[in-house]
């Protein structure tokens, strides 16, 4: 576990306008949940944020690869490697690790769904990836690599270059994520110009194309519109355009459809699926079904820890952690027999009630004395879970 020294620059190109394009500079050993091997590749000679006319997608600086490629066959380098992350907040009863030893992995072109309830720490994990954990919280341990770069060693300036270019975020409420007194176009152009597209006219035409790509009708007019003039669904499309405009390696979407109506939700999920291209997606949601519909892999987070992770089909069909199974059984679904919903007794622990052992034990029907010790995440990249008394397969 690495304790961090903030502000330590590791970027030799710091201060130069042009960035050296070498996203795979760091070749790292495989993690427990990552692919079998990482491939060190030579930098692509493709211009950074190339727009591929033939496919109508924005290529990120990583080579394009069709979404849907399974993890095992892709052997692709990680766009996100999060290892043993711990985020701490001071409370009246000492320090609470609201994120505790969380490791995640996203390959390029891959979508990972991080599923958890409110207070599970999922948003804190997402914010860590932009190093935006709000005060007085702090990243206390762990390492974060985005497109091969060590996020925790970057100084503020390199970090700002990375934000919005290598890592972009789509928030739940687009109305509060846009600046209300600047036009949509202004905000798109600002992001483009900040990250290397210097020509005003070129930036504008790329902004226009970005709006068209996310299915906004008559983008010329919308370019000069202000956020309040767009509906929630349109604004979320614009948000995705803004996030994708610089061809990020990693897109983080925090509850991107929760504030939207059902038919609009379906549109936005479709759009994310189509636009992702070679970027990696970290989808943060409370809704297992939304994650299952969009993501190759799922990580279930409870009280700041990953309790189960693996390929979507494994998690949905053969959950091993009692919490995952309970979540699956608690959600209403369209089932003719209308079984009574199985509720989970109690409620998730608050930041002051985080125990060292299994944090789900107090609500778990399978708990025993053994659960006072912390169960480690065990298993392979297909499926891993942290439980002393896992649900039997086939149960």
């Amino acid at each position, binding site marked *: 576990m690495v304790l961090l020294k903030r502000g330590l620059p590791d970027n030799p190109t710091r201060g130069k306008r042009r960035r050296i394009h070498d996203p795979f500079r760091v070749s790292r050993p495989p993690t427990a949940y990552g692919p079998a091997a990482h491939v060190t590749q030579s930098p692509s000679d493709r211009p950074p944020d190339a727009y591929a006319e033939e496919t109508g997608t924005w290529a990120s600086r990583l080579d394009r690869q069709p979404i849907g490629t399974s993890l095992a066959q892709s052997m692709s380098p990680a766009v996100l490697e999060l290892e043993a992350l711990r985020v701490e907040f001071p409370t009246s009863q000492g320090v609470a690790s609201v994120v505790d030893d969380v490791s995640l992995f996203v390959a390029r072109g891959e979508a990972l769904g991080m599923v958890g*309830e*409110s207070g599970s720490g999922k948003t804190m994990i997402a914010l860590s990836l932009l190093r935006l954990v709000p005060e007085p919280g702090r990243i206390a341990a762990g390492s974060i690599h985005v497109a091969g770069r060590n996020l925790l060693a970057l100084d503020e300036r390199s970090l700002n270059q990375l934000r919005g270019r290598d890592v972009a975020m789509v928030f739940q409420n687009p109305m509060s994520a846009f600046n209300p007194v600047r036009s949509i176009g202004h905000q798109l152009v600002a992001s483009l110009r900040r990250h290397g597209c210097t020509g005003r006219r070129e930036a504008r035409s790329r902004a226009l194309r970005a709006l068209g790509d996310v299915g906004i009708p008559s983008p010329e007019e919308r370019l000069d519109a202000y956020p309040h003039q767009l*509906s929630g*669904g*349109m604004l979320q499309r614009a948000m995705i355009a803004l996030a994708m405009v610089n061809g990020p390696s990693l897109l983080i979407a925090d509850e991107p459809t929760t504030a939207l*109506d*059902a*038919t*609009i*939700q*379906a*549109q936005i*999920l*479709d759009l994310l699926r189509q636009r992702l291209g070679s970027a990696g997606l970290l989808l943060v949601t*409370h*809704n*297992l*079904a*939304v994650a*299952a*519909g969009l993501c190759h892999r799922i990580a279930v987070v409870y009280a700041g820890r990953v309790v189960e992770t693996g390929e979507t089909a494994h998690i*949905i*069909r053969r959950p091993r952690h009692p919490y995952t199974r*309970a*979540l*699956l059984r*608690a*959600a*209403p*679904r*369209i*089932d*003719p027999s*209308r079984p*009574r*919903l*199985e*509720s*989970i*007794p109690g*409620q*998730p622990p608050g930041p002051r009630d985080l125990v060292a052992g299994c944090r789900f034990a107090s609500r778990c029907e399978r708990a025993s004395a053994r659960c006072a010790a912390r169960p480690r995440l065990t298993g392979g990249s297909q499926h891993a879970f942290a439980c002393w008394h896992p649900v039997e397969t086939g149960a």
Partner: protein
Amino acid sequence: MTRPLLAALDLHVSFPHPRGRVRALDGVDIEIAAGETVALVGESGSGKSTAALTLMGVHRPDSGRVLFDGQDVTGARASALKALRRQVQMVLQDPYSSLDPRWTVARILAEPLEANEWGSREARQRRVAELMRRVGLPEDAAGRRPTEFSGGQRQRISIARALALEPRLVIADEPVSALDVSIQAQIINLLLDVQRDTGVAYLVISHDVALVHQVADRVVVLYLGQVVEQGPTDRVIRAPLHPYTVALISAVPELEASADRRRIVLPGEPPSPLSPPSGCAFHPRCPVARDHCRRERPLLSGVGSASVACFFPGELRPPGVRPA
């Protein structure tokens, strides 16, 4: 059919707006029988919350009538409304803003009893204790304030408050959408248990089709202030006839989408109620609309046990279902 507990007949409700009037409800009929659960389904702007508030007597309809137990309560005076509200109570979506943060739970639960001069002081105290037990609040909750409780516990307080006067109908506006999944099931089960024990009727307002399928006996689907389809839950959700209902159900994210289940993703967004489209309000987004739909408005007409407002009902099939 026996006399419904509550009937709304041809409700029209509109609100003033700088650019004309917003037609929130445009000829809506809703019937709720005693002890039954009816769900009102629609997206934001469909008029489902306006419908609830009109039934409660908060909004006065431009035309149309609301009958409670056969008695016309449309535009009733304050005293008559007070009597109505003993019988019709509401549970609101947000348990954070619908409970006074400075009041204790006991006071919150006693307020409706006091306002309606229910029983003696001791009887009211007993009733409060009984309500807390009924909704599964711990005994020591009485002296605590809402801020000390989680969202799920607060929604229990809300439900207890709504049940205080033994209403015959509870209108629940998105009762679980602000809660976590693991808590939602607790609250849904609580609502169902209370209904089994007391025979209360529910009008559940929700955008969540899966939830509605779980709890409702009948479903009313609203689009832009009009009922586009209504009928028994199983019929409407498993064999929807209106293209909007088909798309709405198709939009529900499912855990295991089968290979042949292609989702229907509707283009566009619901139009503004300020300038509703001509003819069928759904035609601009409808995959099977024709010229006729642009000119004329379809009326709700019976198809078996349900009714649907569409010139071509059943034409758009749910994905995965092969045409006969």
